[in-house]
């Protein structure tokens, strides 16, 4: 099923929407922020390089404008690098899991992407991904 989507490059960077209740007081995402929803086969993200702007700040600002999710103050976007995260999960997960990072465009949301190969009960992988976050920025 994933074959219908194109792979992202290792150099791509992703933003994952994280609700305020899943951000620790010291500004890190909880592992559950990277737990796919029950009916989803991937972790939904946005590719910064597919947004407007030449810098991360500008791309995040474009995401704030175009993201259709209802957001509250203190909600965040967690930033991940595709190559680093993929390598960390392969190196550190007990089953040396190889994740797939795909471009999954949606109507009116060209930057939408997915991380495939993670299940709802893969707590260790959720945690490894959360630990690879290289930045947290306001979602509002």
């Amino acid at each position, binding site marked *: 099923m994933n074959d219908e989507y194109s792979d992202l490059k290792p150099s791509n960077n992703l933003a994952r929407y994280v*609700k305020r209740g899943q951000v620790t007081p010291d500004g890190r995402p909880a592992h559950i922020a990277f737990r796919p929803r029950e009916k989803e086969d991937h972790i939904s993200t946005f590719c910064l390089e597919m947004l407007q702007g030449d810098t991360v700040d500008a791309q995040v600002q474009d995401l704030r404008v175009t993201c259709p999710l209802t957001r509250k103050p203190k909600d965040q976007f967690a930033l991940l690098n595709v190559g680093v995260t993929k390598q960390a999960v392969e190196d550190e997960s007990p089953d040396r899991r190889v994740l797939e990072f795909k471009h999954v465009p949606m109507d009116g949301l060209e930057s939408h992407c997915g991380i495939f190969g993670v299940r709802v009960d893969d707590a260790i992988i959720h945690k490894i991904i959360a630990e690879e976050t290289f930045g947290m920025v306001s979602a509002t």
Partner: protein
Amino acid sequence: MTVTTWHVLAQEDRATTTARQQPSNRKMGNVAVEPTASTTAEAMSVATDITRSLLSRKPLKWSRQGVQVEINPPASNTEAPETLDSAGQAYWSLSKTLATHRPTITKKLFEDIYQELLSNVSDISVFISHQVVNLPVAYAPTMPSYVLPEVEALLESPLGLPAKLVSRLKELNSYSWDDEEQNSIQVQSLLSLKGFLDEYQPAIVPNTTITLGGHIIAEWRRSKTNLLTLEFLSDGAVKFIFFHRLGQAEQQINRVSGIAAVHNLPSALNWASISSLLNE
């Protein structure tokens, strides 16, 4: 019709409340639901009766429109508000605060009812909490709590948790007020966290977050390879994630996850490493 919630916190085995749909129980987190009064004065009268029952620690039997409500207040350990008047005033103040600060939920549940409550109370209802809570006596709050849902009442009670943690939990719980997707903290999850803290007495206050379902997640983290994350579920079990080094070897990191009862965590995990995380 105006409906407002009325939660009475009472000690297990010492307080029982019976009403429609809840013929008998040994639980806390009461009750009540029944349109009763038709005027503000009558609603105040009902509130006063219940308050009086709590203050005097005498049972109250109450029958309106064919529904019997019986309240047996906590027999001991209950510190009464100073005066009946102040208790009544506190009740009304809290009712309005609840309606004001939880607009999403209250609108959804009691759309027109709460709007009316903000301006003109015409009825009062007490209703059954469907969240059954089996509360150990040791955790029972020492004061009755009017109107507040159980978890908020618990967080206001002397639970013996660090002030910093209680403050954080209140913040996490408040996120449910204006977010339909976010549940408030599950009472059993809070009690399970308390049970863990009581049993293992960690010196370090954990970082906490919350699942959409209302489960508390507590984390002790020294680095990305040395951490313990516990998700306290509603059934008393705990989902854990534990990363730690095996011996002195730089590359040997053990990463485990699973589920266990709180008291089984030491046998499920490397407890020496965990004790270090919790206390240093």
